[in-house]
């Protein structure tokens, strides 16, 4: 246990019980985010990235989902035994989250001001005017022009980028220790993406907020994250600082993922693809889950899942042959 860890996830398993099947969305994930660090979580759609994030806040849709086992230590304290009431005090205050689809993340029936002030009022209290002042301050902090006008506007009147700024503002009002970003830029166009990433970077540097950044875009990963965890079929298969993940990936899946990213500097006719499909998480292959798609796979890969081992200083990987 390390003091500088803001969050440490230990062997988390979140399963979905659908009819006869058990879909193992998160199947033994261990992660840590250090203070002031931005950990990127990468992987294909459906590899359990978002479910890991929702498990931290205990917002997994239940039923059919259920956190089956594991520990989540937040500032050294295990969150799992906490009651719903205690979790509510943590959500939005100590750990906040921003979501993928900004315009869907705000209630269409209320003005922006109403929604920001609700969160500030709930966690910090204070009179009407103080709450309003705080809301204006936080909107200025995320570089929203004319915050007074924005307060009285409704979500449909703002652009996606603007709403994402508002969402970030709402998420950081209480100065959380951990900010979980679930693909915050996926629904935005490329120039807005850049602005939002720059804003998040600034916030991290100025306020020292640790982040868990979920994405499937390796470009964004290199831009904002200081370290990265690669997930495949509910497992973390490689973990390291961002440099060594991108420069010298060890796991064949990470290598393939990076190779399949189109590059402008090296012209090629075809994009590289990873053969095969993401396994069905209800019936995932035995042993290493990546073996049916892996060019290194041998007989031993079918028998037992490879353990996470530290191949280089601070660079962990779950593969027998890397």
């Amino acid at each position, binding site marked *: 246990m390390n003091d500088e860890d803001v969050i440490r996830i230990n062997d988390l398993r979140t399963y979905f019980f659908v009819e006869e099947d058990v879909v193992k969305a998160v199947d033994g994930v261990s992660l840590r985010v250090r203070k002031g660090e931005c950990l990127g979580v990468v992987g294909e759609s459906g590899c359990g990235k978002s479910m890991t994030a929702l498990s931290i*806040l205990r*917002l997994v849709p239940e*039923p059919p989902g259920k956190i089956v086992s594991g520990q989540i230590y937040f500032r050294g304290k295990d969150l799992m035994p906490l009651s719903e009431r205690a979790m*509510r*005090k*943590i*959500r*939005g*205050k100590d750990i*906040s*989250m921003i*979501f*993928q*689809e900004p315009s*869907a*993340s*705000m*209630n*269409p*029936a*209320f003005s922006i001001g109403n929604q920001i002030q*609700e*969160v500030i009022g*709930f*966690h910090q209290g204070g009179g009407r005017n103080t709450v309003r002042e705080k809301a204006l301050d936080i909107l200025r902090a995320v570089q929203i022009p004319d915050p007074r006008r924005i307060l009285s506007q409704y979500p449909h009147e703002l652009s996606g980028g603007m709403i994402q700024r508002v*969402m970030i503002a*709402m*998420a950081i009002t209480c100065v959380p220790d951990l900010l979980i970003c679930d693909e915050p830029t996926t629904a935005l166009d490329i120039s807005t993406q850049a602005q939002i990433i720059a804003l998040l970077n600034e916030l991290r540097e100025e306020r020292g907020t640790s982040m868990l950044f979920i994405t499937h875009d390796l470009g964004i990963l290199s831009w904002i994250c200081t370290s990265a965890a690669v997930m495949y079929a509910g497992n973390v298969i490689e973990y390291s600082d961002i440099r060594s993940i991108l420069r010298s990936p060890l796991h064949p899946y990470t290598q393939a993922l990076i190779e399949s990213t189109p590059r402008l500097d090296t012209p090629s006719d075809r994009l590289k693809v990873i053969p095969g499909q993401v396994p069905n998480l209800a019936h995932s292959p035995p042993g290493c889950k990546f073996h049916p798609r892996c060019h290194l796979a041998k007989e031993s890969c079918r028998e037992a899942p490879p353990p996470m081992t530290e191949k280089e200083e601070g660079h962990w990987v779950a593969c027998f042959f890397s």
Partner: protein
Amino acid sequence: MIGGGVAIIIVVIAIFAPLLSPSDPNHVDFGNTLSPPSFRNPLGTDHLGRDILSRLIYGAWVSLGVGLGATAISMFLGGLCGLMAGYFGKSIDVIIMRGLDVVWAFPPVLLALAFVAIEGPSFSAVILAIGIVGIPMFARIVRSTVLSVKEKDYILAARASGISHFKIMFTHILPNIMAPLVVVATFGVAGAIMIESILSFLGLGIQPPASSWGLMINEGQKYLRTFPYYSLFPGLTIMITVFAFNAFGDGLRDAWDPKLKT
């Protein structure tokens, strides 16, 4: 929107009944019984010589009072049940909805009759009975709307900000389901007026000498062959009112549902 206009006119008539009615609805005049429409009595008089138009106007107050009162009860209780069932799901959903299915299984008039028979016929008993009968309809509509609204990202986002279930239900979900709720309420008013008329017609609703449209049809029944006006005008009034509220509801639904606008 003509329906809305007519509905509003009826509400206004009900509110200003004492000013609008040409004569005292309870004034008995034995020298002038069962007289056909005339200048003095525009819609004729009943078997006690009372002015039918005045009695209809005063009856509007009763009918609308029952219609709105009963709908308010069913909307409040049904809305609450539907909100809880839809939001919490699981066993709470099963308990509430199966319980309401029992109420739903009875024909509404029969159930209302049973309630009034137990409580004894009175204005408040009629409102309560009709109100209870309407609960399952509201609960079902609210539940199904809540089911779709609670999956929205903004509800998850609100949960991620630490807002409690109770607050999410009432301040985040409720405003988003008001549109269908109001539409159903207008249909509810129309239905409640119908049931009130039926109860009064059967003698278990509003008691004489108060006037109610259903009661007037009942009283006019005896004179149907010789003096049809007695039952005809209240019948027409009920028809127009129910139609107006239904048309109003249709109009609201069309205006609020963008999918129907083509």
